[in-house]
């Protein structure tokens, strides 16, 4: 039973759903694949997550404690989904951006706080300044493509998706963002 479980967290409007679509579009034809999204109210600046599953899978949601990847397009939203990560083999990939929730008098953790909290739980933490790299690629909205690039470089995503199919489905800016994401991360 081969399976790949991914949970991507972010803030509504960051391209979380598009990122799930990018991955699933490129799944190798020998595997089943399903992604599951939250729409509606959640798109209004709230926390959003997408579950992406590949391999011998039928169910739409990732079981807790089993994800091979937990990805945060925004750092706090990455942390919010840490419960899905496998504590033995899970990889946490985080864009080092914190977006303040639009509620009065909220107190926020720092990036270092988040890294420390995640490290208590899983071994491999990967950080990347995806916003800066997306801008270098030509569009701030390409943060999701940057993170897809990083996922291709760490862990077993490559076993399940066809890189050339993935790259061919993207425009120039997003392709560039994927390449930048492949090379410019740090593993902590």
């Amino acid at each position: 039973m081969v399976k790949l479980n991914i949970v991507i967290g972010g803030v509504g409007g960051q391209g979380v759903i598009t990122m799930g679509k990018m991955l699933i579009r490129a799944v190798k034809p020998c595997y089943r694949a399903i992604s599951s999204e939250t729409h509606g109210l959640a798109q209004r600046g709230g926390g959003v997550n997408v579950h992406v599953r590949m391999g011998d899978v039928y169910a739409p949601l990732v079981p807790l404690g089993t994800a091979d990847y937990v990805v945060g397009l925004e750092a706090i939203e990455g942390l919010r989904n840490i419960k899905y990560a496998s504590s033995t083999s899970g990889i946490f990939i985080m864009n080092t951006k914190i977006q303040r929730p639009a509620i009065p008098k909220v107190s926020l953790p720092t990036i270092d706080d988040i890294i420390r909290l995640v490290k208590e739980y899983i071994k491999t933490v990967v950080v990347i300044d995806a916003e800066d790299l997306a801008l270098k690629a030509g569009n701030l909205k390409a943060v999701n493509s940057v993170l897809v690039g990083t996922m291709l470089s760490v862990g077993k995503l490559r076993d399940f998706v066809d890189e050339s199919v993935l790259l061919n489905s993207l425009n120039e800016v997003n392709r560039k963002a994927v390449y930048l994401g492949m090379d410019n991360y740090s593993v902590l």
Partner: protein
Amino acid sequence: MERLLLLGNESIARGALEAGVAVAAGYPGTPSTEVIETLLKERDRYVEWSVNEKVAFETAYGAAISGAYSLVTMKHVGLNVASDALISSSYTGVEGAMVIFSAGDPSMWSSQNEQDNRYYGLMALIPVFEPFDPQSAHDLTVKAFEFSAKVKHPVLLVSNTRVNHSRTWVNVGVKKAPVWGKLNKKPQVYSLVPSVARANREKQLKRWELITEEVKEFNVIEGDGKKLIITAGVGYAYVKELVEDNVRILRLGVSVPLNKEQILKAVDGVDEVLVVEELEPIVETQLKNILFDEDVRLKVHGKDYVPRTGELTFEKVGRAVAKFLGLQLLEFKEPEIKIPDRPPALCPGCPHRSSFIDLKRGIVKGGLNVTFFSGDIGCYSLGVLPPFNVQDSLIEMGSSLGIANGVFRATNTIPVAVIGDSTFFHNGLSGLANAVYNNLPVLIVVLDNRVTAMTGQNPSPSREIEIEEVAKGLGVEFVKWFDPFDLKKSIDVISEATKWVKEKRKPAVIVAKRACALDVLDKINGDLPIAVVDEKKCTGCSICYDFFTCPAITVGDNKKAVIDTSLCIGCGACIPVCPHNAITLKGETPKGWDELWLS
């Protein structure tokens, strides 16, 4: 065969096209919206966003009794609005085919309740088709149309968020030419005066017998063993991944009604049964009825093992299956981490945020210090959150006016009703007529952002019909509009209206008119201006980020405001809110900017 990457809802639209749908109508609502959105791209069919679910239902019904193939779509609560027509449609049946798609929202990600609409199938005697993933959603939609045409009866297609909003590769067939109707007058069937209704009732029960017989073909028995799991909807997807083939599974494609013969065959030689279904014990109850009637003594587990509330997850189904099969379950311990909440927020540039600020200041200036904010359903429902606190109740579409009436009659406190433009046309008109008819002193604020915004900027009747004219036509004597970004003028209009209501003891309507920011951004090209904070003028008073709460304004050193340049859209709404005039706009506005906001 073609293979497409489709969302569950896109699969349903595709299935409808392959079945020959000619007329489709719906009202947007998460998680149902993408079906009509997808169908609107087709040129050879008639597809519309109706003003509400009842009208959409009647449209599809009118087409189907004329022999056409029709589809109506809505979210679960929308079927309550259409339920008057729904129940009687089962008495008459249809000539062509009619599929009623209702999308449920267990866990209430985007809804006020998580009602299980399969109950409507039991109540109205309408069969319920229930897919478990996008592929089965596609396949069952085609079959639902065929079945409806065959038994001459409307059919319900009920699925929930994790089917509607899941995406997979789907094998699709060929689109079929639309099946249109022709004029068909049979008042002896379709005009439900009592004598016709009585005759139809007998025929309805006969059709129900036929339907109960015929639904067998949509249900499948897989695997074998002494234990039987009966699944419906997304429950199957979890069970399929969790159990080996030493367990018998009855997968129901139709969960209402159950077929006695098929059930008896499924339980034959079985020691124990587990029913895995989301929300209510619909299958479980029908199953127990059959077993009782047939004197089959069998332990049936259902809602004692599978929770009745919230959507299904691996953990919920896993726990139930482990208990049922006597397996060891590894309970997962969630890490205990404190994380700040991130509730959905009004977008940067949202006119509602400004309207709420204007409203709170305006009514106080008008002398209304204590009121009840009777709210409604839309993006502006987020006004329930701090710092706004301007939605003291909201339970259903159009509730603001009726509830305001009751609150006033009971307390003598003048209420403020807050309703959006799409909701106003959906179900606000009758409440407004009642307010005029019964002389309700109420300040009605219609937040007109020109679209049905919450579901993704779907169109709204407000683009075609002026709300002020409607209000005047219904007899409202005080009708004015304001631009919510213009703080000073807005406060003047609101306070004037408030004083008028207090003095005349009658309803007043004021319309806050400014387009949804997302809709404006969708239509604009070119660079946007951006807000800039003058650090020398900013005192760190926190009004802009703690009391206006635009997501694009964050806190910097010394509590001073900092603009998040990735989120700011340069709308300028924050400028009048700053008491120290510390915020200005930098950069030119793109061409057509003001027109888009205010047209």
